[in-house]
């Protein structure tokens, strides 16, 4: 029973401890096994948290028994549990596939450290979500960021180094901004606990320092979530990272940043300050619209499929921010739904590309002509992910788009409908290019002896692809959770 009480911290501790264990074991297979067990244990623990918070309860956990505001508080509400589930679920699926993919892409002497870094990244992301302490957020942000830089630089391509460096510079600026923001908040209120901050901020909300803190935090978090035009690090980072890292990052990292944005905007500052005083939605809205349209358009012209999906991610983040910018419970629900659904679709798509990478050694569109003949299952899963990305009914993507458009109509912002429609149509163009080449072009002679990807890659790919269908049909699970999360997050709004 005692273990059960410690779930909020266990979901961070397990991967955090698994990281040094991976280094100590120092053999690729053993390290993988440790990471696999850790990620599944974390996933199981997260499910426990989700069950406990399913109807809107909040779990408060005092680290080391020190009560806040002196000690650090871990605070899991429905929203946090929902995001923790995404991160740990994707990590668990990634780990299933990791052994096969890593054995091919990472030199054996670095594999153990690769798993260690991956566990650290996971621990960092879980920590950001679990903690209720603003400074602790920064610490975990750094843990996840630093390990991510290392992970990206392990890509086979030498350009991975440059991509990692680019992300390092941008990410550090972002982290610094966040730190400055938190510092300002501490300066004005004398506390770092988020609930405490929320209680004390209204008294000083007219101070310019608080406005500055808000601005620093927004820009800092914006960098981490690849808010247009702060997204320039993302395409290279996703494209040149090892395949498993691309899957993990694309499905989780930006989602956690979205969570952080929600946390600060609604819980810490409160919507009255964020929206009425700072008018954040007027900043987010145009940026989201430009992100959807421009990034989708750029994706149409990419030859490297991982890069194409990366640009598509920037556009999809635009949809999430669009939901936020509507600043209604419906809009935020749509955003949260898309956080979950986008993790599923990008997970499936990047995982399918990992399988292609494993077999063919390339994800350049021109190299893949006629590949559907040799790898029908992998590319079949890719098509399902692609349909979900477009938003075809009975896929997860349709559910989030349905909610987003309904929220836009409710808010009376009719002109957003064409934006969303054009975004979807651009998605049709950039994914259908791929479908056309792999299924209907005559095969590239270099592919003659290709076979289907091994089961260890195919299984996770299909698990994610089927999840896209499952949550597209049984959407009441996700929509119910998202609505509960939103209700507790912004109870006061409207």
């Amino acid at each position, binding site marked *: 029973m005692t273990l059960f009480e410690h779930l909020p911290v266990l979901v961070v501790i397990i991967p955090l401890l698994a990281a040094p264990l991976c280094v100590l074991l120092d053999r690729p297979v053993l390290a993988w096994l440790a990471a696999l067990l850790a990620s599944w244990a974390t996933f199981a623990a997260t499910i426990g948290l989700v069950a406990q918070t399913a109807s809107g309860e909040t779990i408060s956990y005092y680290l080391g028994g020190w009560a806040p505001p002196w000690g650090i508080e871990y605070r899991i509400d429905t929203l946090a549990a929902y995001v923790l589930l995404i991160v740990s679920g994707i990590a668990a699926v990634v780990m299933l596939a990791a052994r096969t993919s890593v054995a091919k892409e990472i030199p054996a002497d670095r594999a153990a450290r690769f798993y260690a870094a991956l566990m650290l990244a996971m621990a960092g992301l879980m920590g950001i979500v679990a903690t209720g302490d603003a400074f602790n957020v920064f610490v975990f942000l750094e843990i996840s960021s630093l390990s991510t830089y290392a992970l990206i630089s392990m890509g086979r391509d030498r350009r991975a180094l440059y991509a990692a460096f680019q992300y390092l510079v941008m990410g550090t600026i972002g982290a610094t901004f966040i730190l400055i923001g938190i510092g300002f908040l501490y300066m004005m209120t004398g506390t770092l606990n988020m609930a405490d901050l929320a209680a004390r901020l209204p008294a000083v909300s007219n101070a310019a320092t608080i406005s500055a803190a808000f601005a620093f935090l927004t820009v800092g978090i914006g960098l981490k979530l690849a808010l247009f035009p702060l997204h320039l690090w993302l395409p290279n980072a996703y494209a040149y990272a090892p395949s498993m890292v691309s899957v993990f990052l694309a499905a989780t990292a930006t989602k956690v940043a979205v969570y952080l944005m929600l946390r600060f905007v609604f819980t810490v500052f409160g919507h009255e300050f964020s929206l009425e005083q700072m008018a954040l939605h007027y900043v987010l809205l145009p940026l989201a619209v430009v992100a959807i349209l421009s990034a989708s358009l750029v994706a149409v012209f990419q030859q490297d499929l991982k890069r194409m999906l990366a640009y598509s991610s920037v556009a999809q983040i635009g949809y999430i921010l669009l939901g936020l910018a509507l600043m209604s419970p419906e809009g935020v629900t749509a955003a949260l739904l898309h956080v979950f659904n986008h993790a599923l679709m990008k997970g499936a798509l990047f995982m399918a590309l990992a399988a292609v990478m494993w077999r063919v050694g390339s994800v350049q569109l021109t190299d893949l002509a006629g590949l559907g003949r040799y790898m029908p299952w992998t590319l079949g899963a890719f098509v399902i992910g692609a349909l979900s990305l477009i938003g075809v009914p009975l896929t997860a993507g349709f559910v989030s788009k349905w909610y987003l458009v309904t929220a836009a*109509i409710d808010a009376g912002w009719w002109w957003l409908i064409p934006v969303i429609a054009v975004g979807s149509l651009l998605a049709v163009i950039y994914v259908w290019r791929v479908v056309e080449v792999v299924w*209907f072009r005559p095969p590239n002679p270099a592919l003659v002896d290709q076979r289907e990807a091994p089961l260890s890659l195919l299984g996770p790919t299909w698990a994610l692809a089927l999840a896209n269908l499952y949550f597209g049909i049984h959407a009441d699970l996700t*929509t119910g959770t998202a609505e509960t999360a939103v209700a507790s997050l912004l109870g006061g709004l409207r």
Partner: protein
Amino acid sequence: MSGPTLIALMLSLPFLGALLISLSGRAVAVRDGIVLLVPLVLLAVVLQLPSPVLVGDRPELVLVEMMPGLSLSFTAEPLGVLFACVASLLWPIASLYSIGYLRGNNEQHQTRFHACFALAIGGAMGVALAGNLVTLFAAYELLTLSTYPLVAHKGNETAIRGARTYLGVLLLTSIGFLLPAILWTWAVAGTVEFTPGGMLAGKLDDGLMGLLLLLYVYGIGKSALMPVHRWLPAAMVAPTPVSALLHAVAVVKAGVLTVLKVVVYVFGTEVLTGLAASDWVFWIAASTILIASSIALRQDNLKRRLAYSTISQLSYVVMGAFILAPLSLLGAALHIAAHAFGKITLFFAAGSIYTASHKTEISQLDGIGWKMPWTMTAFTIGALSMIGIPPAAGFLSKWYLLLGAWQAEHLAALAVITLSTLLNAAYFTPIIYAAWFKPAVDDSRHGEAPVAIVLALSLTALLTLLLFFLPDLPLALAQAIPGVGS
């Protein structure tokens, strides 16, 4: 069997068929056996549905609640049952034809072809039975996506470009217009369930209602109203069985069926009667009829001429609905059936000519009637049906359309139908004349197409005649549509 069981079988059989076909791809004989058997089983199932529906039953099947208030549900109502009967009656014949055609022309990827074909029929059944707009949209998109591989079948540059236009136009209209229209309906009516008499009465003012109507009409790209008709000629790069069953029956009829469902169950004829936009849609359909017929007149490629003829015939259905008289609505529903039998015969004949002689242009057909008497007799019957001459089925629907126009004192509609009949005659009679009465110029020696093909097209020609003599069932179904009355 109970109604819901029938519905479940109708929806699952095509998918089961697709699965079995994919699994038996290596054993060609077994696969082709399944290709023939599954449609027959489906037909046996579908034919049990009209009798309960005619006595007023509306069997319903709710598969799953997707989101609060939104379910994946299916209802058997007269309009959809009529379409399901037509599609499932023609599927076995088209399967027979496909086997003959694919073998006769040594086509590649036959398994993929048959599997996608079955999926497309599944989509068509879904459109026929959909109980709400979202289910309808899902089935509609399934139909689009599953027919894409069939259009791109040959895999050469022309086929891929044609398929791109096909998919592009259909998705552009459905995502760009139809989905927003459905969402808008959901936002104002609070429901998307099909309701006899409509769900929008009094919910929007006339201007916005008109805009919504236009979104629907152009969002349903499959009904091929100009200017969103371009996908249909583009789809003609597909093998002929696809053009025949899908692009003369299943896909395009799913389009006009959707229009009729929207008219009857979303707006309701009463709401539309007072609406200025209804007149616009009428004129859009009327001009599509005339323009497409004039374009058909100038096509030398046989399949393209048939494609433009299809575009014009589809607009009969839309126009019939927007005359907004009970009898014209009846005619529109009947035209779904009547046009299907005639047009599939014409396409079958075109494919038969191609298989036997590799001729694709009308100017090459001089004297071909004597070399391929069965094919050209069937073609002649199909053409008579298109023009609307008894004893072919096309006369029947045209008769009711005219009666409806007369009843509503809609002179423009009368004029359009008359003019269009003349145009139909002008582009079909030269083919018939050339085939039978002009001397053959080349001395190529070829006989009839393979037996499977000849058998299939003879059957559909026979059905075209039968429908004229025995119109009771479709007529009864059409009369049961809300707004038609009896």
